[in-house]
C-alpha cells in the first residue's frame, strides 16, 4: 500500500499495516524532519525493520539533498541478513509500483570476507552492517570515516549498545600479549635493519609521509570530511611528532622500553587499581616516558607498518594492541580505569596477571557517531527504561517513544511466580540461592510446566555456574528424570558448537511432536541471538533475576563512574541491566502477532514496582495484580487457561488504507506511541 505519512509518500510492501507501524513511522519522520536523534522501543515481530526501511527510503527519495544515506547497523549476521531480505522486498515493491528500474544501491557487509572496497561504500544509498563497523574505532577508521554527514544511522537491537561501545574501547594485556609484542618488535627491528641496507631513502621518506598524513587528517577533520576517531586525538593532528619516536629506530626503541615497563607492572602479588593520570605519572617517574609520544603511538605504528610494506597486519595484532593502549591511556584522563590483577579470583594459586584497561564510559566510542551524523536512531524491542540510554550514551534525543503491540488477542501472558506450593519464597537472591527448598521449587515449576505446555519450553538461568549447580541437584533429586517423561532436555554449554547442535536437536524435537526443554543462560549467546518462534517456544521461564556478577572490580569501577558522572545510582543501573536481560530472554518466544507464549518470571522480586517498572511497556501492560506473586499451582492454572484460549482464537489488528485516511483514526494511532 502507499501511505501518506504527514505529507510523505511511503511505499509499504504489504496490503495492511499494523497501527503501531504507522505510529512508529510517524515518530521516525518527525525525528528526521528535526534532524535529531531518536530512541524508539517497539516489540519484535511488529515489523520494525520494514517500517524503518520503508520510511527512510521514502524520505531519501523525497528529499535527496537532506538525507543521502541510510546506515543500518544490526548485531548478528542473521539479523543483518534479515534486513537485507526485507530491503530486497521493499525494492521489488518499488519497481512493481513505479515501474522504474531500481536506482538505489544497497550494500551489506555481513562478514569479514565481504569486506567491501572502500569507494563502493561511499556511493551506496543504503549500507547494512554490524555495529563494529561504526563503533569500533579500529574498523570504523577503515570503513566508515568518510561517510556523509547527511546520513541517517539506525542501531537496531540496540539494547546492549553501551556494552558494545565499552568493549570496543577496552584493552586487556596479559603476559602472552607482551611476549608476542616483544616478538613483533624484534621482527620490526630486523626489517628496519634490512631496509636500511637496501633502501635507506624509503625510511627517510617515512617521516615525511607520517607528517603529511597527519596534516591531511587534520585538514579533513577541520573541513568535516572524516568522522573523528577516538583513538586519533585532535591534539596530535596539530602537534609535531615528538623527537623520541620520529625515526623508525627510535620508535622501536621506545616501544621496547614501554613493553619492559608493562612487564614490570605485571609482576605483582596484589591487585592494583589506578586512573590514567596515575599511570602516566608512574611511567614518567619509572622509565621517563612522556605523555606526548605515547599519544602518537597508534598512528606512528600504523605509519611504520605501511612503510615496511607488511602484508599481514594480523601478525602484528599484539603490538597494535599495545600501541592503541598507549594512545588511549595518554589521551583520556577520564572514563577509563586501570586494574592489574595478579590472578583470577577463582584460582588464587595460579599466577595469571592481567592488566585491564577498561572503558567505563560508553559515550566515548559513540560520541563521533552522534556528532557526525544528523540523525541517529536507537531502537529495539526492549529499551526500557527509555530515559537511561540518552544518559549513559550522553546525547539529547528529539524523540523518545515506546510503542505497544496492538493485539486482537492477548498473545503473551507474563506471570510472576513468587512461591512454591509450600509457600517458600522463590528467588535467586544470593543468600538463598543454595537453599534446598528454592532449588526444589524451581524444579517443581519446571516439571509442572513440562506437563502442560505443548512443544518447546526455554528456561533461562542467571549465570552458567548457577545453572550447572541447579542441574546437578535436580539430577540428584530425580527431578530431571521426571521432566524427561514429558520432554527431552537440552542444555546450553560454554562451547558454541556444542550448543548449536543442542539447539538444532531441540528444534527437531519440537518439530516432531516430542517436545523439548532448553536450559539456557541469560546474557549467553542463545539469549542474545536465537529466536524461538511459535512452537519452538510456547513458554519461557526466567529462573531468578539475571543480575550481573557484581563482585568484578571492573563493574564496581563502572558503577562508581556512573554514579559520579551521570548521577545514576548503582542499584538503579544494576536493576536496569538485569531487567533488560530478563526482557530479552522472555521476549525470545514472542516473535510476532500470530505467535503466542507464556512468560514466567520465577522470582518474587519481579513483583516489586522497581523491577516491574523497568520492563518494556508492551510486557508491563499485561502484568496485572492477578499475575503477581503466584504459587506454582496458581501459575499452572493460569497457564492452562491461557493456552486453552490461545489454541482456539485468532484475531487480527490491522489497518487498511481507507481507515488510515480517517482523521479520527489518526488521532487514536497517535496515542499508541507512549512519549517518555
Amino acid at each position, binding site marked *: 500500500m502507499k501511505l501518506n505519512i504527514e505529507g510523505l509518500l511511503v511505499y509499504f510492501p504489504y496490503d495492511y499495516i499494523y497501527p503501531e507501524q504507522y505510529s512508529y513511522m510517524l515518530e521516525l519522520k518527525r525525528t528526521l524532519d528535526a534532524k535529531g536523534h531518536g530512541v524508539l522501543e517497539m516489540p519484535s515481530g511488529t515489523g520494525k*525493520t520494514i517500517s524503518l526501511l520503508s520510511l527512510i527510503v521514502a524520505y531519501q527519495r523525497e528529499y535527496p539533498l537532506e538525507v543521502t544515506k541510510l546506515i543500518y547497523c544490526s548485531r548478528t549476521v542473521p539479523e543483518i541478513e534479515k534486513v537485507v531480505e526485507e530491503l530486497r522486498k521493499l525494492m521489488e515493491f518499488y519497481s512493481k509500483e513505479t515501474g522504474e528500474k531500481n536506482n538505489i544501491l544497497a550494500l551489506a557487509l555481513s562478514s569479514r570476507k565481504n569486506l567491501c572496497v572502500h569507494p563502493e561504500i561511499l556511493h551506496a544509498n543504503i549500507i547494512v552492517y554490524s555495529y563494529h563497523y561504526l563503533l569500533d574505532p579500529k574498523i570504523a577508521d577503515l570503513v566508515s570515516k568518510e561517510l556523509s554527514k547527511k546520513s541517517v544511522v539506525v542501531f537496531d537491537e540496540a539494547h546492549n549498545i553501551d556494552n558494545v561501545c565499552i568493549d570496543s574501547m577496552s584493552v*586487556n594485556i596479559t603476559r602472552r600479549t607482551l611476549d608476542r609484542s616483544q616478538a613483533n618488535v624484534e621482527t620490526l627491528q630486523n626489517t628496519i635493519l634490512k631496509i636500511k641496507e637496501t633502501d635507506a631513502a624509503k625510511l627517510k621518506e617515512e617521516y615525511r609521509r607520517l607528517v603529511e598524513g597527519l596534516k591531511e587528517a587534520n585538514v579533513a577533520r577541520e573541513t568535516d570530511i572524516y568522522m573523528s576517531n577516538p583513538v586519533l586525538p585532535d591534539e596530535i593532528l596539530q602537534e609535531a611528532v615528538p623527537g623520541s619516536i620520529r625515526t623508525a629506530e627510535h620508535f622501536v626503541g621506545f616501544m621496547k622500553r614501554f613493553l619492559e615497563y608493562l612487564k614490570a607492572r605485571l609482576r605483582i602479588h596484589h591487585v592494583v587499581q589506578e586512573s590514567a593520570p596515575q599511570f602516566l605519572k608512574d611511567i614518567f617517574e619509572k622509565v621517563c616516558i612522556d605523555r606526548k609520544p605515547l599519544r602518537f603511538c597508534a598512528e606512528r605504528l600504523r605509519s611504520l607498518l605501511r612503510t615496511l610494506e607488511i602484508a599481514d597486519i594480523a601478525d602484528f595484532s599484539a603490538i597494535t594492541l599495545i600501541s592503541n593502549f598507549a594512545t588511549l591511556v595518554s589521551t583520556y584522563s577520564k572514563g577509563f580505569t586501570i586494574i592489574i590483577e595478579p590472578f583470577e579470583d577463582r584460582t588464587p594459586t595460579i599466577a595469571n596477571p592481567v592488566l585491564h584497561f577498561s572503558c567505563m564510559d560508553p559515550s566515548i566510542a559513540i560520541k563521533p557517531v552522534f556528532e557526525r551524523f544528523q540523525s541517529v536512531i536507537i531502537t529495539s524491542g526492549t529499551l526500557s527504561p527509555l530515559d537511561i540510554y540518552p544518559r549513559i550514551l550522553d546525547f539529547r534525543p528529539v524523540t523518545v517513544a515506546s510503542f505497544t503491540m496492538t493485539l486482537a488477542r492477548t498473545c503473551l501472558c507474563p506471570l510472576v511466580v513468587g512461591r512454591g506450593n509450600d509457600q517458600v519464597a522463590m528467588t535467586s537472591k544470593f543468600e538463598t540461592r543454595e537453599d534446598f527448598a528454592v532449588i526444589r521449587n524451581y524444579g517443581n515449576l519446571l516439571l509442572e510446566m513440562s506437563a502442560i505446555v505443548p512443544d518447546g519450553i526455554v528456561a533461562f538461568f542467571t549465570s552458567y555456574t548457577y545453572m550447572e549447580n541447579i542441574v546437578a541437584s535436580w539430577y540428584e533429586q530425580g527431578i530431571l528424570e521426571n521432566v524427561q517423561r514429558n520432554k527431552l532436555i537440552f542444555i546450553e554449554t560454554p562451547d558454541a558448537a556444542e550448543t548449536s547442535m543442542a539447539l538444532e536437536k531441540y528444534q527437531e524435537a519440537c518439530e516432531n511432536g*516430542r517436545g523439548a526443554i532448553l536450559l539456557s543462560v541469560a546474557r549467553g549467546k542463545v539469549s542474545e541471538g536465537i529466536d524461538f518462534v511459535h512452537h519452538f517456544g510456547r513458554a519461557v521461564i526466567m529462573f531468578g533475576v539475571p543480575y550481573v556478577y557484581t563482585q568484578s572490580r571492573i563493574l564496581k569501577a563502572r558503577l562508581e563512574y556512573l554514579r559520579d558522572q551521570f548521577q545514576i545510582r548503582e542499584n538503579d543501573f544494576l536493576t536496569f541491566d538485569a531487567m533488560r536481560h530478563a526482557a530479552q530472554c522472555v521476549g525470545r518466544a514472542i*516473535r510476532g502477532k500470530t505467535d503466542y507464549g507464556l512468560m514466567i518470571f520465577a522470582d518474587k522480586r519481579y513483583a516489586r514496582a522497581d523491577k516491574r517498572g523497568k520492563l518494556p511497556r508492551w510486557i508491563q501492560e499485561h502484568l496485572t495484580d492477578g499475575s503477581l506473586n503466584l504459587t506454582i499451582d496458581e501459575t499452572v492454572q493460569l497457564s492452562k487457561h491461557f493456552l486453552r484460549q490461545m489454541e482456539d*482464537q485468532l*484475531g487480527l489488528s490491522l489497518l487498511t488504507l481507507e481507515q488510515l485516511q480517517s482523521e479520527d483514526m489518526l488521532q487514536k494511532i497517535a496515542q499508541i506511541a507512549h512519549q517518555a
Partner: protein
Amino acid sequence: MAALSEEVLLVVKRVRQRKQDGTLYLMAERIAWGPEGKDRFTVSHLYADIRCQKISPDGKAKIQLQLVLHTGESTNLHFSNESTALKDRDAAKDLLQQLLPKFKKRANKELEEKNRMLQEDPVLFQLYKDLVVCQVISAEEFWANRLSINNVDHSLSNNKQEVGISAAFLADIRPQTDGCNGLRYNLTSDIIESIFRTYPAVKQKYGENVPHNMTEKEFWTRFFQSHYFHRDRINTGLQDIFSECAKQDEKGLKSMVFQGVKNPMVDLLSLEDKSLDEGYGSNSTAPSTSNTNKTVKENSNSAIIKRFNHHSTMVLAAGSGKKADAPNGQACETSSTDGNSRDSDFFQPPIKKVKIQDVIEYEDLHRENGKKTVALNLKKSDSVLSGSALCTASCAIAALSPGGVLMQALAQQAINQMVPNDVQGELKHLYTAAGELLRHFWSCFPVNTLFLEEKLTGHLEDMFQMAYNKFHAWQTRRMMRKT
C-alpha cells in the same frame, strides 16, 4: 495316549506340577507333563500356544519354570530333583528358548490380533463383553464384522511407524533395595531394547561379551555398577568394560558437533559478524573456560550437562529411526568429503535464504487471495486499539466455554456432577452395544443373499429384543435404586 510317533526331544524326571510328582516331556511340537506312574499327560501345550516362559530367580529355594499361554493362563513346573534341579530346569529352558521362537511365527496370528485389538481398545473389549459374553451375538459374528477392518489395519501396520523411546526409560529402572544391603534393578525386554537403541555402544559390548565372556545377568549387573550408567562418567575405571562406551559416546558427540548444524539460523558460531580482536573488550563477565582451573565438582557438573545433551540426542535419533552417529566416526568422514562442511557455504545460501524469508514474512499483513475475511465492524473501534474491548470479549468467551468460570455452575455440573460416574459408564456401554447391533443391522442391506436374509429375519431380531430387554432391565434397576 499321545501319538507314539512323536519325537521326544527331552525328558525330565521329578518335575512337580500342582504338588504332584511327574515327568516333563519336550516334543517336537508340544510340551507335556504326566503324573508319576500314569501313562497319560494331564498337561499338554502346543508350542504355538505358549506366549513366553518365565523362570524363578537364582537363589530361590524352589526352582521353577512358568509357561504363559496366549490365553493368559499359566502352568508352573517345579523341578524337584535335589541334585540336578537347576541343571534340569536350565536344560528345559534352553530348549524351549530355541523352540518357542520357531513356533511363534506359526502361532495363530488371528487370535493374537484379536487379543491385541481387545487389549488396546477398551471400548471394543466392553462391547465384546456386552455382546459376545452375554451371548447376544456369537463370537464369529462379532469378529466377522471386524475382520475386514482388521485386514486393512494389518496392511497398514506392516509399515507402521516405529514406536519411539521414552526419554525417561532409565528412570523406570530405579533400583529398589532388596532388604539385605543390595539393589535390585527391574529390567524388561522393552527397557533393554531402549538401552540398545539409544546406546549402540552398549549393544556392541553386549554382542562381544554375552554369552562368551559373561552371562546376560552378569553383563547387566556390571552395566548398573559402572560409572557409565551413573552420574558424571568421569571416573570410569580401566577395568570397567563400559569405559570404552563412554569414549565412543564422547567421540560420537564430537563428530556430530564437528559436522556442525544444517540450520544456519541456530549456528551460534556464525552469529557474530566481527567479534573483537584478541585482547580487546571487557571480559568482566566471561567465565574462564579452561579445564585446568576447574574443580572436580565443576567437572562433574559439566559432565552431567553433556550427558543430558547426548542422551536426548540419541533418544531423538532412535525415535526417528536414523543413526545419530557412527560409533567409529565413519559418518563424519563421509559427510565431510561431500563438500558440505561448514566452511564451504556453497550449499547453504538457498536453505538460509528460505529460512530468512520465512522469518521476515508477516502473513497477516497480506490480503488473502481467494477467501475473503469478513471484516469485523466494531462500534467502538477505539477500544480495539487499546486492546481492552477484545480482551473483554475473549475473556467472556473463555469464561463461557467448558471449564470457564461461568460454566462451572451450570452445564458442567449438569453432566459431571448430577449423574454419578458409574451410571454414565453403564449408559455408555448400553449405547455402544446398541450402536454395534444397529451396525450389524444396516450392514445386511441390500439383502442379496440367503444368509443375510436369514440374519435379518432370524436372530438379529432376537438380538434387538435382547438388547432392549437389557436396557429395560437396567432402567428398572436404576429407577428402583432411586426410589
